[in-house]
């Protein structure tokens, strides 16, 4: 019985295959959902644009302040603080990551404690703590040799640099540790076998290879850092956010000046993103086509 059905089905199938279909028109499937989705997005975009255009935003004010002297100085300070804090963070990060591999348990624990402590406290709070360091250490220096009053040393810039850099170091150390782990043990041995000592091997052989893994997240964190610098406005460091605030306290053009700041953050970060992909290509040497063509 079943066999009979099978045979008939096979016959129909056979007939369909032998019939000439080449003259028939091909009709593509309509994806109606896609049209609806695209239309919805366009509508929302249009709505947002119109809202801003008709809203109480004086665009000419934004345009005028974009290149105001105070704002440009603020942008310069933002970039300076971000770059220095990041370099500081990377220097700490490399050191702490290497400390994590130490055979000495005290050194290992110190590194762990540092990461735990500074990752566990909000950045804004750390900035304020550094700024108010004079309450704990009234003076800084080596007694008898030289000594400064902490309030003189701990300018908004120094406090921001320390706060952001030390905080960043805790995150960066984990990124760098991951990078070091990613390099094959055989590379350490090969470096030793050609007579390199540990630090030399680390610097010449291991770190350059680890960079491939380290760079994408570091680039990400650098971008984060540019934005974290806005926290320094709280302790009166005149980066671009603080500069905008100072102006809008005086002229009440709040949204206009916020757009000025937003524009500059976006501009700086776009440039950074472009730089990142170039640096990544450099460190991808010898890593195969997939890694290089990114």
């Amino acid at each position: 019985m079943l066999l009979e059905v099978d045979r008939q089905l096979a016959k129909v199938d056979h007939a369909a295959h032998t019939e000439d279909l080449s003259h028939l028109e091909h009709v593509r499937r309509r994806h109606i959902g896609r049209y609806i989705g695209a239309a919805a997005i366009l509508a929302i975009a249009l709505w947002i644009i119109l809202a801003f255009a008709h809203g109480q935003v004086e665009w000419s004010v934004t345009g005028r302040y974009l290149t105001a002297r105070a704002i440009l100085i603020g942008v310069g300070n933002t970039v300076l603080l971000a770059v220095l804090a990041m370099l500081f963070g990377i220097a700490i990060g490399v050191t702490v990551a290497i400390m994590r591999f130490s055979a000495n348990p005290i050194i290992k624990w110190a590194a762990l404690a540092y990461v735990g402590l500074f990752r566990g406290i909000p950045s804004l709070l750390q900035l304020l703590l550094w700024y108010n360091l004079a309450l704990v250490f009234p003076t800084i220096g080596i007694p008898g040799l030289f000594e400064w009053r902490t309030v003189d040393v701990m300018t908004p810039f120094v406090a921001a640099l320390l706060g952001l850099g030390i905080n960043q170091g805790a995150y960066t150390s984990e990124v760098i540790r991951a990078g070091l782990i990613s390099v094959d043990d055989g590379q350490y041995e090969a470096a030793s076998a050609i007579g390199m000592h540990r630090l030399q091997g680390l610097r010449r052989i291991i770190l350059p290879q680890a960079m491939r893994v380290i760079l994408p997240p570091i680039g990400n964190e650098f971008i984060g850092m540019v934005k974290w610098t806005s926290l320094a406005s709280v302790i009166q460091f005149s980066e671009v956010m603080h500069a905008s605030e100072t102006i809008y306290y005086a002229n009440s053009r709040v949204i206009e000046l916020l757009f000025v700041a937003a524009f500059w953050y976006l501009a700086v970060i776009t440039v950074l993103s472009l730089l990142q992909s170039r640096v990544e290509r450099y460190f991808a040497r010898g890593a195969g086509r997939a890694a290089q063509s990114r």
Partner: protein
Amino acid sequence: MNPILKAIDVRKSYGTFEALKGIDLEINRSEVLCLIGPSGSGKSTFLRCINQLEIIDGGALWINGQLVGYRRVGHKLYELSEREIARQRLATGMVFQRFNLFPNKTALQNVIEGPTQVLKLGRRQAEATGRELLDRVGLAHKCNAYPIELSGGQQQRVAIARALAMNPTLMLFDEPTSALDPELVGEVLAVMRDLARSGMTMVVVTHELGFAREVASRVLFMDHGLIVEGGSPEQILNSPTHARTREFISAVLS
């Protein structure tokens, strides 16, 4: 003539596992010593002890009459610093089973890394020697290729050139053909054969009994952390005295 390498009662343990239970050995200049034996017998461990990639727990090793890893002052042996160990390693060249070329450097850059960074030779001089060495292993045309662009056999030949660039007195090979496709084994063994003919002192951990028969001046059979027996290739490979050696050789050949 003083031996290039001398080992007296060398021991090495990992936790409770004794990898080497007392190795005594002398290797003379221009000797090619092949270490054979089942995996886990301690041959690679012994090689890594010679190069101080592992620190020995007991006994003593000398290379060129110099005590390895320690300095003797009076009746005490003082452990050397990490930098002193690095300097001692210059006497030996090491070729690894998995090549371990630096992937971010070209073949030539791999070869000149040690001479420029460790021996502090000038770049031009190092490059000239490096090109010569790559030519010697038949890869003059691959100077600017990255490891990923080379076959396994070519990578291993670059690794041999890299080790030779440090001008070692003793070359160590840790199963240099075990990670290669069968058709690539020959080119690496050919380079090693040339090297042996040029008078290089070599210790080769290998499963290539044919190579051992042809090139070795002495073959040692190791098992369970000890040298079971040693002698000329004919003696060990054709008429071993120990049952364990016979079993191993017939198992490898079958």
